[in-house]
């Protein structure tokens, strides 16, 4: 938008400058035109030619070469002044336009870069979040599997321990008996077992009596 306005301003300045230059050029050459026309008309009538000749002389006398040269100089100076002023305005406008262009380009580039960086940052963040989620999910899975394995191992260990303990406890009497017999079996005299046997018989006395009396 601002670029269009700037172009319109430049076209306007150029048109104004052209008009001024055209007007000055036409103004510089106008004194000769009436003189030529009067020459043509002098052929048609004497009176008019005399008047015209007199006017011509007056004009020649008033607008002599020095006056014309002075007018030319004034016009030249005025033209140079206008050109200089317009050039200055043009320079200011160009500077302003350049500055605005720079600002515009800077803003546009900055905005574009910001948008791109924002998109890039969002992509990075998305990828980062995706990687974090994936890692978190993997860690959760590993942790669950570790807990399951730990629990399974613990259960198996406890079960095996219980089985071993039960087997050991179930056969403890045989183990102790075997150990005792291996250790002191040959040193146990049968006569020394009498008290033990009598004691055991005393403990089962009632059952033996009942069985002997009723189980005939």
């Amino acid at each position, binding site marked *: 938008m601002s670029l269009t306005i700037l172009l319109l301003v430049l076209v306007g300045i150029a048109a104004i400058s052209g008009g001024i230059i055209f007007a000055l050029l036409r103004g510089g050459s106008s004194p000769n035109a009436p003189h030529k026309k009067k020459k043509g008309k002098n052929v048609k009538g004497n009176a008019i030619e005399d008047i015209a000749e007199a006017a011509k002389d007056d004009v020649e006398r008033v607008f002599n070469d020095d006056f014309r040269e002075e007018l030319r100089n004034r016009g030249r100076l005025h033209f140079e002044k206008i050109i200089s002023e317009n050039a200055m305005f043009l320079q200011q406008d160009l500077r302003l336009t350049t500055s605005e262009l720079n600002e515009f380009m800077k803003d546009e580039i900055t905005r574009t870069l910001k948008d791109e960086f924002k998109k890039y940052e969002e992509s990075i963040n998305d990828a980062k979040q995706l990687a974090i989620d994936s890692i978190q999910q993997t860690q959760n899975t590993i942790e669950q599997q570790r807990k399951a394995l730990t629990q399974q191992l613990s259960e198996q260990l406890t079960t095996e321990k219980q089985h071993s303990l039960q087997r050991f406890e179930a056969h403890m009497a045989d183990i102790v*008996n075997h150990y*005792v*017999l291996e250790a002191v079996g040959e040193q146990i005299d049968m006569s020394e*077992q009498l008290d033990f*046997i009598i004691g055991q018989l005393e403990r089962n006395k009632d*059952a033996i009596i009942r069985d002997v009396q009723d189980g005939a």
Partner: protein
Amino acid sequence: MEEQAPKPRTQQHTSTVQLPNSVVSPMEVARLLREIEQIDDFFNQEALRQSGTPTNMPANSRLMESLVQNNQMNLLDATHRQALIQFLRETDAHAPVVHMSFSVDPPGKLTQQLAMWLRKNIDEHMLITIGLQPNIGAGCVLRTTNKIFDLSLREFFTEKRQIFIDRLHVALTEQEPGTAGPPQPEGVTA
């Protein structure tokens, strides 16, 4: 002759004869019965013989001597012989018998003491048969007609298993804080 119904082995003896503790097994009772019957036959034959014929009386066994002496009997008396024969027949037929198994062959003194206890506490005519069962360790296994009484050291340990387990747990619990390995016996230094 009228046939008698079989009497139970726990039927009470009518005689007052007592078995000596040295007579333990039914085989010894049967041997005594044969012996006393031979003696009785001898005296019966002796009564039929003519006087002046030399004869040799059968020698009495140690068990027979013990049986006669314990019951204060005289084998020359026919009544006593008949009482002994009657008693031994009843004993052989009806006395309760238990079977006792030991890890090794028990000495006679042990079996006599066991017979004495059984006759004093269970039945006065109790007889014992002896068997071998090497895997029982110490003690014995008593088998009656219907039941088996395991009086061995193995069964004793089985009954005391909970005590072993408790002691073992106590020992392991005391050992766990130090974790210095199995406890050293007293007097043993590293």
